[in-house]
């Protein structure tokens, strides 16, 4: 008896194709980065915005403490929007806000802070954007919640009321 293999083969191929497309149907075609992963913070050296002295990341971030690293620039419009939320968070004693001034002109950045006040404990300069890449950032604004030298939460885009509530909840 001759076994007819072709119909079965065709059905098999069809099923594989169906399975691949069906799986692909549910995937988002927009890239969604993993924002929940707990990754160790990078070690780096940067220039202090205030005094132009080189500072090591180990002298900024300590264990058992919460930090918020906010990447900002004076040319970035959403940074202006999120600024009031950062000023609000500054009142929390449990957290230190560290600023990373991304590809900015020093004078413009200074004007920005004079106008809106600074929520930052320390501001670091990232004039070529390479420190932001070390953090796995995409651009400005972007914010990282850090605890125990690990990134606990990543907020891509401007901070809003909800993200502040979430951060405060984590701080509790």
């Amino acid at each position, binding site marked *: 008896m001759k076994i007819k293999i072709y119909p079965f083969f065709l059905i098999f191929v069809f099923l594989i194709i169906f399975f691949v497309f069906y799986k692909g149907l549910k995937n988002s075609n927009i890239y969604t980065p993993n924002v929940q992963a707990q*990754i160790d913070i990078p070690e780096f050296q940067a220039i202090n915005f205030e005094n132009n002295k080189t500072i090591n990341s180990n002298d900024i971030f300590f264990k058992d403490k919460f930090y918020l690293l906010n990447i900002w620039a004076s040319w970035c419009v959403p940074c202006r929007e999120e600024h009031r939320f950062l000023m609000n968070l500054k009142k929390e004693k449990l957290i230190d806000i560290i600023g990373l001034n991304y*590809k900015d002109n020093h004078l413009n950045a200074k004007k920005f802070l004079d106008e809106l006040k600074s929520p930052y404990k320390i501001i670091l300069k990232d004039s*070529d*954007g*390479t420190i*932001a*890449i*070390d953090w796995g950032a*995409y651009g400005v604004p972007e914010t990282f919640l850090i605890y125990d030298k690990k990134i606990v939460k990543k907020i891509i885009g401007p901070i809003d009321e909800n993200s502040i509530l979430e951060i405060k909840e984590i701080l509790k």
Partner: protein
Amino acid sequence: MKLFKYLIITFFVINYNTIYAQDINLEKKITKNLRCLICQGQSIYDSDSEFANSLKLVVKKKLESGNSEEQIYDFLQEKYGEWILYDPKFNKNTYFLWLLPILMFIIGGAIIFKLFIIKKN
């Protein structure tokens, strides 16, 4: 003797150019294999966005400090996930992707072999 000196200098200059060119070629190759995550359908090499320009600089600095192509891919994969690589690595998520063409080739070959060669005989 003078000619010998010139020859040595020429030798070094030519070799330096080759090394430099190799570095640039490798830099090009790496940045072409990296996806610009904030652009649509562009590689880091093709894009002129702030993100792409910073990443180009990071690749250049890493190559200058003696990192290999693999090390640079590993570093960026750790930061941004596998999506940043255009040429995905062989792992449990990509078995199907890498093996399906080979499987198709083998099955196709078997069909051709059965239809034409065995029938002929």
